[in-house]
């Protein structure tokens, strides 16, 4: 049965291999240059000398000048997001549904192999192919962008950064893409088995997977490990600015150095000396953008900033958790498929 599953999968496997080969060539050609820029930047030893900030900025601006590197960095992230969705749509959804539509399941299920085994082997062969494809892609991408990720991880600051624990980057590095691929694939197979028509199943797979891709980083990942907190005393001298949340809420931003390097900042709150959340909009000078008077006024209030964050050191813990979650979901979906194929389908 494994050979039969391979016989049906070999064309798709060849396409995947060809795509991986193209990616490998593109990254192998440009990767050494990115690594070279990093090596000559002196970032590797900057922590001992305490001059990381300017060295990283210089490294990043050199990268920005290399349009091809910048392009590949973002293309890699985009492609890594799309690959599991494509796997789910084009490998998952048609896997059983195409057989139901063409009637060939009546041929397959009357051979000397039970349909449970038929499904299990097909899921195994194509599922492992999906995981291998995503895994290899992620391995290459993680290698290629590791100088950029390392540099970003050393930089302190509250701007949108290029850290690997970032909202967007995280799922395109390390081992989580394997989990995403396994999940997207089984999601495709399951929607196919439930809807029983290939094109609607592909659309449903795309919609459901995209939804999960949005929900996971925004609402689930931050809570996988309870976040760390840090408080910073705010003085007239170290306030870096005001951040507006909603219409009438102004948060006082701490200095960039207050944010732990490489950390995923979940929230920043201003707390007054009574322990309550402080809204800078209550001070008219701040509301009217009179920054000098506002800063002076705030400095007298003995405010502190509460930073809620996930430290950079938790990257691999998050990687394992998220991978495990998606693999567990894939196992559940596999169970649903098996149950459905055994019980209902004719």
């Amino acid at each position, binding site marked *: 049965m494994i050979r039969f599953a391979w016989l049906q999968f070999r064309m798709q496997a060849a396409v995947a291999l060809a795509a991986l080969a193209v990616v490998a060539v593109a990254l192998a050609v440009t990767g050494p240059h990115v690594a070279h820029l990093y090596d000559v930047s002196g970032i590797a030893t900057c922590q001992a000398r305490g001059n990381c900030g300017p060295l990283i900025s210089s490294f990043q601006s050199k990268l920005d000048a290399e349009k091809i590197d910048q392009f590949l960095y973002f293309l890699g992230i985009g492609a890594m997001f799309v690959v599991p969705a494509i796997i789910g749509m084009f490998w998952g959804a048609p896997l059983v549904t195409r057989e139901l539509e063409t*009637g060939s399941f009546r*041929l397959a299920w*009357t051979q*000397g192999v039970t349909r449970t085994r038929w499904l299990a082997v097909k899921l195994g062969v194509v599922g492992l192919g999906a995981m291998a494809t995503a895994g290899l892609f992620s391995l290459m991408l993680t290698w290629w962008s590791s100088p950029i990720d390392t540099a970003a991880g050393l930089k302190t600051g509250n701007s949108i950064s290029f850290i690997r624990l970032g909202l967007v980057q995280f799922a395109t590095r390390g081992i989580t893409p394997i989990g995403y691929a396994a999940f997207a694939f089984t999601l495709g197979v399951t929607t196919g088995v439930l809807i029983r028509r290939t094109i609607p199943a592909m659309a449903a797979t795309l919609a459901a997977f995209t939804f999960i891709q949005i929900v996971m980083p925004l609402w689930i990942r931050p809570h996988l490990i309870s976040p760390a907190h840090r408080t910073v005393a705010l003085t007239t001298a170290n306030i870096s600015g005001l951040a507006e949340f909603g219409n009438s809420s102004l948060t006082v931003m701490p200095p960039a150095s207050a944010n732990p390097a490489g950390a995923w900042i979940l929230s920043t709150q201003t707390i007054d000396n009574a322990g309550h959340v402080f809204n800078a909009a209550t001070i008219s000078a701040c509301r009217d953008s009179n920054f000098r008077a506002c800063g002076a006024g705030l400095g007298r209030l003995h405010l502190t900033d509460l930073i809620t964050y996930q430290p950079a050191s938790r990257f691999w813990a998050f990687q394992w958790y998220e991978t495990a979650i998606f693999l567990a979901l894939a196992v559940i979906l596999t169970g649903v498929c098996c149950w459905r194929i055994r019980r209902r389908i004719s």
Partner: protein
Amino acid sequence: MTAVLEASGLGKKYGRRWALRECTLAVPAGRVVGLVGPNGAGKTTLLHLAVGLLAPTSGTIAVFGGRPADGSTQLGRVGFVAQDAPVYARLTIADHLRAGAWLNPGWDSALANGRIEQLGLDPRQRAGSLSGGQRAQLALTLAIAKRPELLILDEPIASLDPLARREFLQDLMEIVAEYGVSVVLSSHLIADLERVCDYLVVLVASRVQLAGDVGALLASHHRLSGLRRDPSTLPANQEVIEARHTDKQSTLLVRTEAPVLDPAWIVKPVSLEDLVLAYMRRPGGTERTRRSALGVVS
């Protein structure tokens, strides 16, 4: 007489509609069984239940005494060609034969390759480019090369042209003679079945109306014609299947095991086609169902 296929009170419901109901049937071994009935009578449902593609809603069905498709041994004992002979369009004939060998422990590759060669098919040809007749032959080859004890064919010849139809049935007869396999094949074309079947099951409006040895069925049915007469005045052992009357004359199709001795009748034998059509036309028949044959899905 051992039964290859035994159904008892078998029923299959789709939503609220019964596609097959109260089907009790025993198909003896070593026979070529024709399953006839109008479109939508439940033939395909019955065959899918027999190969385990469907599970019954009520009652039981057994193949060689076991549940259909229950494990690889059971699957190996039954060869099946589904309606329209589905194959994998993108795989070649050779791929199909290789897959057959991988999936079936009892695969006879000499038989499979020999048949493909005999049919004049190129093993490198994709199955999607075969004609309907060639595809049916490929599907039959796959079904027979696993060396089943029972071969089940669902409307195997419906989509074939008359020449391909004849060749297919001829090949089937050769296979039966050579390997002693029992066959169940469905069709709504009685004329074709007449040539090959020695056992007949008539399915109308989701119920079995008639089942039996073709010779015995022909021997026990007679067409009587004579002066107009009320069918209820016939002897008790003569069951009227169909009655037609003109002003002066009555023509009846009766079933009886005893000879018809009444000199008022002219007694003629019936053809299999007339016999089957009479049962198909019978409103509800012995099962007293008022369903139309057309209102039921197969």
